[in-house]
């Protein structure tokens, strides 16, 4: 099989592994049992006048007699700045924000570049006239701008993060080999891709050509070795991300919506009550005598037992 086809196959495989990894992780968290309530205020979907001071429906007398409110706008006002601008970090760790935001913005731009390239390649297939006309030129300028700035920002951010990891004594206990490796992985991948593009030579296919070739399985394309190495590294990096804590873009959905902001009262949800009734039938095996878990008793049995000797039952 020609090398080019092997590269295409690796890229397809990486896309699949990335998606499968992300889905598997999301499913694992989604299938975890619902937990006891553990919210932290402010909860932004509370009523707007309460969000201002971080209050909850518990501030009202007889709160259970009023219909539940859900302030979607309030959630969006917090979610969007967090997703786009890392607002939490800006607020609580400004020094880190400069590095982290550069890195993340770089990755967002590169993701956008990838999407634009695939879109352009699809347009090439569907309406070649468009891609070789003004639309194509416009798209070219946009993905080149996002691509170049994305690589630059991600590299600067990753270097900044690496510098902090290696020099800040306060991070010594929490820095593992993996943390350094992950940042180096990004730097080497981005550096190889950039070098592969810059030194590709006039005969080499452009990025759109490669995207088109990838979609059409064009074996005739000759990808320069350095660029090919960059693409393979990129594929490996994409496959690797869902296996690590770097997949926090998935985890954050759950930490925010299922934990930090989950204030739904049990009485307002029959579904919740059903799930919790099921959990109370589980049979724990904790060994401390006072728990009284013998593997046969359920959580409901344990919760209604009184282990205190001589207690009024």
């Amino acid at each position: 099989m020609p090398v080019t086809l092997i590269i295409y196959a690796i890229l397809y495989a990486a896309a699949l592994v990335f998606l499968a990894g992300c889905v598997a992780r999301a499913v694992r968290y989604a299938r975890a049992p619902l937990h006891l309530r553990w919210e932290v205020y402010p909860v932004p979907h509370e009523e707007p006048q309460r969000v201002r001071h971080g209050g909850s429906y518990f501030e009202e007398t007889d709160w259970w007699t009023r219909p539940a409110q859900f302030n979607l706008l309030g959630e969006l006002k917090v979610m969007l700045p967090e997703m786009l601008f890392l607002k939490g970090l800006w607020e609580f760790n400004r020094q880190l924000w400069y590095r982290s935001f550069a890195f993340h913005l770089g990755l967002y731009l590169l993701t956008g570049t990838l999407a634009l390239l695939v879109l352009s390649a699809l347009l090439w297939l569907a309406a070649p006239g468009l891609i070789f006309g003004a639309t194509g030129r416009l798209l070219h300028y946009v993905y080149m701008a996002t691509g170049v700035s994305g690589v630059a920002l991600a590299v600067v951010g990753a270097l900044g993060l690496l510098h902090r990891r290696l020099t800040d004594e306060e991070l010594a206990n929490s820095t593992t080999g993996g943390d350094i490796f992950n940042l180096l992985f990004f730097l080497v991948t981005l550096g190889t891709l950039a070098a592969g593009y810059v030194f590709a030579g006039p005969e080499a296919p452009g990025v759109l050509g490669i995207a088109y070739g990838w979609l059409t399985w064009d074996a005739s394309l000759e990808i320069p070795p350095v660029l090919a190495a960059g693409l393979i590294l990129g594929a490996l990096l994409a496959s690797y991300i869902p296996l690590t804590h770097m997949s926090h873009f998935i985890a954050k959905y759950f930490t925010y919506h299922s934990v930090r902001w989950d204030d739904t009262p049990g009485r307002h949800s029959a579904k919740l009550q059903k799930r919790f009734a099921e959990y109370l039938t589980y049979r724990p095996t904790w060994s401390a005598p006072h728990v009284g878990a013998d593997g046969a008793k359920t959580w409901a049995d344990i919760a209604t037992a009184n282990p205190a000797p001589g207690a009024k039952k």
Partner: protein
Amino acid sequence: MKKGVRLSQMAREDREPLVHLDHADLMRLPAPLEDPAQDHHWAPLSAQARERYECGLDDTCAVNIPQPKTKAEEEELVKKFLAGLDKLFTRENNWTFLQPLLLTMEHCARCQTCADACHVFEASGRNELYRPTFRSEILRRLYFKFVQRGGVLSAFQHGDIQVNWPLVARLVELAYRCNLCRRCAQTCPMGADNGLVAHELRKLFSQEMGIAAKELHEQGSMLQLKVGSSTGMNSVVVKDNLEFIDEDMSEKTGLEVHTPWDVEGADILLIHNAGEILAWPENPGAFAVVLNAAGLSWTLSSELAGYDSINYGLWYDDAQFARVAWKHLEAARKLKVKKIVLGECGHAHKALSVVADRILAGEMDIPRESALTLLRDIVVNERIKLDPARNNFPVTLHDPCNLVRLMGVVEPQREIVRKICPQFREMEPHGVDNYCCGGGAGFAIMSGNNFPAWRFHVSGRKKLAQILTAFGDCLDPSIPKYLCAPCSNCKGQLRDLLAYYGLWERHRILYGGLAELIVNAMADVQPGFLEWEWR
């Protein structure tokens, strides 16, 4: 070594403490306590405690685990610990908190944003041992190694760790150096929760190994389940005490004060933290005055645990937590009340209103509400006549973490103090961004060994600084000042903290609850309900 303790040192075989704090290391306090040289000397941990118990963490010892006598005993304990660790990550054993725990284990970015939010870490002078991620990082490494059965690659990715008895014993103590205020969780960009880690470690030790602070277990939840209250009061004693309080209140207020007991069909079952009845009787007394004056239908319950809202299981044990919550609900069900109102106790609020919420269904799902909202309605709707001029002294408000950051009850108490206290001033920061009093998660009642010295110098230090700053313009002892803390555990910590630093004697800073301020401002009550006496 004062700073820079490494994770690997937790497994050090000797029993020497890993860190020692000097006054000069600690966060500086504002005037008049700004000179570290003038600070109290810590009571040292006794040689006897060091010899008998596992006290190899720092300057104090909270749990008093007896030292194993043989290597075989140590190995057995480590085995138990690892068995408990496995259970912590199974559905059957830990459905209660599995999802947030997994998320915290697998998605901390190790960015240390949480560290600046932690009052213990800051007050300790940024000592590594008290960094919120220090204990989390240990649990995380144990999780990947022993639960996920990670090999060499996992150790490279997540960090390696050696497990032995000294590490486990130190981890027990370290689980009791966090107030579970979850200020760190509020700031984590990932939503990871180091407070939860301390909570889950405590659970593992209690539910699998039977290890817990005795003030929380034997003298706490077990005593409550046995006689009805962790104070040791049974229903006869508690009724006697309330009768005496009623008499005292009648005399002080000039009103006929009567606390109703076991009134079937009452609208409200009021549950106080029974500690109030013994330590601050004016608080349940003030509640009786206000609720009677407002003409509400209410009652106390003499059922087992029905007169003591505490639920220490919240801090260390799910089984004990569920049992006590169940008793509270049973008391309400028997009386057929319309709702439970929780008195001034933060953790009782969170335990029964929030954490227990979803395990209650059918006839046991009796609505629960905060006394603060009820009092707010009475005050703001002018159901009692108030004269704010009677409270014309500087007042500041402490926000109990469990009520505010962890339950969202922020404004009702403020609406009250703004209406009845002309000289009210906020601490900074306040509301959901507040700092813990340093007594949270059971510390306020933990007084073994020299633990109080640690909670005064370290966990309570940030709150102390806030109090001094809030009253910075009126420290003159000729001006009486009131620190309002609508939570029994917080009051216990603040009482000890203010006394330790002589702030009542030297600067006339008194602490107390919210209901007392309301009664002090009631126009129909004889003036001078607040006695400005230290207790």
